[in-house]
């Protein structure tokens, strides 16, 4: 079992002793990882900064309960993933307006590019706005637990052991969630590709 990094331990102890600078340093060490998960899970919204802030404030409130026998990274990531899952559940009713913004031909082109094998389209490699919207639309509606598991494994490229720790589940459960997310994404993508989902959205 790995323990908290000694530098983290000192920062945590100093934070609990009332050192504001120590907490700022602790935030600095993990803010990129938290930001990445929040940004990729919730999408690029103006609220992301507030979300990162809320994750660290929750961590600060619970810091006295943190056991220094365990590493700090997965603990803060677990708070972040729980926060994201919470937010996704709350946002369930709201949908992004992707398909109404793009015409039929554009939608078909983007979707065809997404399923193209071999070298990716330059727009995909650069992550241009339209492709990001397609990606977000595909992730939307995915069970929040599967969505976070997918982001941690496929986008963050974390080992399953780490994914499990972040999700607070067993490694087997983490694998199942990622597998279901992949299968669900393929199913949704096929529906989009056939135009069925796009029509549903237009009706809505």
């Amino acid at each position: 079992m790995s323990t908290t990094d000694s530098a983290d331990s000192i920062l945590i102890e100093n934070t609990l002793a009332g050192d504001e600078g120590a907490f700022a340093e602790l935030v600095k060490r993990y803010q990129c990882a938290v930001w990445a998960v929040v940004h990729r899970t919730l999408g690029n919204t103006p609220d992301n900064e507030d979300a990162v802030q809320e994750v660290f404030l929750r961590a600060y409130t619970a810091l006295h309960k943190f056991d220094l026998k365990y590493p700090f990274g997965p603990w803060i990531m677990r708070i972040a993933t729980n926060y994201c899952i919470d937010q996704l559940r709350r946002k369930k009713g709201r949908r992004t307006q992707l398909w109404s913004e793009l015409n039929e031909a554009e939608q078909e082109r983007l979707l065809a590019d997404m399923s193209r094998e071999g070298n990716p389209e330059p727009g995909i490699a650069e992550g241009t706005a339209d492709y990001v919207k397609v990606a977000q639309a595909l992730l939307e509606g995915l069970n929040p637990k599967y969505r976070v598991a997918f982001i941690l494994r496929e986008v963050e490229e974390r080992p399953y052991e780490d994914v499990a720790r972040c999700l607070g589940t067993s490694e087997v459960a983490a694998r199942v969630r990622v597998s279901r997310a992949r299968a669900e994404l393929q199913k949704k993508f096929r529906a989009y590709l056939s135009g069925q989902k796009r029509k549903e959205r237009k009706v809505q």
Partner: protein
Amino acid sequence: MTKPCDLFDSYRDGDLSGVETARFDAHLAACPDCRGKMALLDNLALILKQDPAVLPADLSVRIAKKAFQRNETWDAIVLSWLRPGPAFAALLLVGLLFSTLWIIPNYQPTNAFSEYEKLLGEANAVNIDSSISQIQSEAELVVWLEQEAKSQ
């Protein structure tokens, strides 16, 4: 029996042995379903890996400041007392106080006057009319007792 498509996740996660990987490679070449899924996931991950949003430079300082400010507000202090340890101790104390009051509900300090009141109550109960019933305080009782002693 496991179908070749069922090994998709193990293949993608790099969990297959060399022989199994070669076998799945052959399957992939013949299965448009698995190929399409692989391409979609590759492209999707690639798009999501791009992170155009830049982290604000002073975010960590602002977060720490807010955390410590929040710590000083009265509601945070009250909330801090709601932590399991102190909350349990407070509950235990309140419980002890209540149980003490409940166990000795009729407790009253005993003195001569309270004893007198008790006797008077008993006397009234059997309709004994006496000068003793005129006494209103402990001092008057003492005087009455002295007079009674002298008269005897």
